[in-house]
């Protein structure tokens, strides 16, 4: 009987440390998921706004306009809130996701409805030798700058995607237009 008892005792494994470690790993991975890597888009603003009195030769720029095609409807289903209500846990209004929000672009004079088409058009313009302008600093040639003009009702996401497309096409100088008012 004693030999059987000994064998049974040896077979018993202490599960506590393993469960502890598993919990520890679960908490670690849950927490690390909150930290999404952030990145940035540097934008250099004019240094002399509102105070310039010198005459500067006008520079040719590519105008990329963003218009609202369909305003979209806010969807609060994920956040579990409703419009205008403050989340008591965060003290901030509940977050929504915009559904069916559609925009259209005008790259130069050309109207476009898909981001892929915008990328193609921007790449075509960037490769066109006619897009090279005089560089005032070096005296050489450089690719003209582009101005993103976001019309009322457009969102940060729309501008970020457009700026991303300009970067992809090779435009190094991206300016942002503004002051066109809030959405109607």
């Amino acid at each position, binding site marked *: 009987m004693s030999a059987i008892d000994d064998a049974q005792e040896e077979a018993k494994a202490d599960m*506590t*440390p393993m469960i*502890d470690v598993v*919990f*520890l790993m679960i*908490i*670690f991975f849950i*927490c*690390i998921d*909150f930290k*999404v*890597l*952030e*990145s*940035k*888009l*540097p*934008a*250099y*603003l*004019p*240094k*002399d*706004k*509102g*105070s*310039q*009195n*010198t005459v500067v030769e006008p520079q040719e720029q590519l105008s990329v306009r963003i218009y609202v095609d369909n305003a979209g409807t*806010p969807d609060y289903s*994920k956040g579990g809130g409703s419009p205008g209500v403050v989340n008591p846990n*965060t003290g*901030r*209004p509940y*977050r*929504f996701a*915009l559904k069916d929000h559609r925009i259209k672009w005008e790259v130069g004079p050309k109207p476009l409805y898909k981001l892929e088409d915008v990328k193609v058009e921007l790449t075509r313009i960037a490769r066109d030798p006619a897009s090279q302008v005089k560089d005032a600093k070096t005296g050489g040639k450089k690719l003209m700058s582009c101005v993103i003009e*976001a019309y*009322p*009702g*457009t*969102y*940060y*996401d*729309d*501008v*970020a*995607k457009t*700026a*991303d497309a300009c*970067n*992809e096409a090779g435009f190094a100088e991206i300016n*942002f*237009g*503004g*002051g*066109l*008012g*809030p*959405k109607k």
Partner: protein
Amino acid sequence: MSEVSKLVQQNVEMDMTPMIDCVFLLMIFFVLVIDLSQKSLEDLILPRAVFQEPDDEPPENRPIINVLQNGSVVYNQKVFYDPDEHGRDFRNPNTAKPIKELLLAIRTQGVNEKKLKLVEEDIGGGKKILLIDDPILIRADKWTEWNYVGEIMKQCSMPDIAFWKVELALSEQDKETGEKNAKLGGQKQ
């Protein structure tokens, strides 16, 4: 040795493993959750972009302006501009007043505490202005109207504020859709 003294010796033994596990667990929890550097970051979903610069080593003194979905401007967890209270149309100069005052206060405080570097720039015509040579980060939700972000940028470019290095925060992953950049830290090709 008597039976009694054997029993006493056995009782004194204590298993330290669960306690050490708990301590580690608490340490990891506090390190990850109470990250003091994150206090100026609001919980926003940033737009995803592929061709941006990774923000691996953010400057320590960089001011961070958060713009919520409704357009509210938050700095260090405090709301400075609320469109419901101050209005939405920036063509009225009074609407942007709280934003302008906030940026001026950030500039003054940063310069007084020598956290922000000033450079003198000759803008022609014998005029010189003092520019802030350090960047400012604007963090807006992907569904924040551009009108609000554009106005902050406009105010930053004003000569009395002169934050000319503006950075727009983006993400390598869209937390809303789960869409993620194939190559983290997407670099210019």
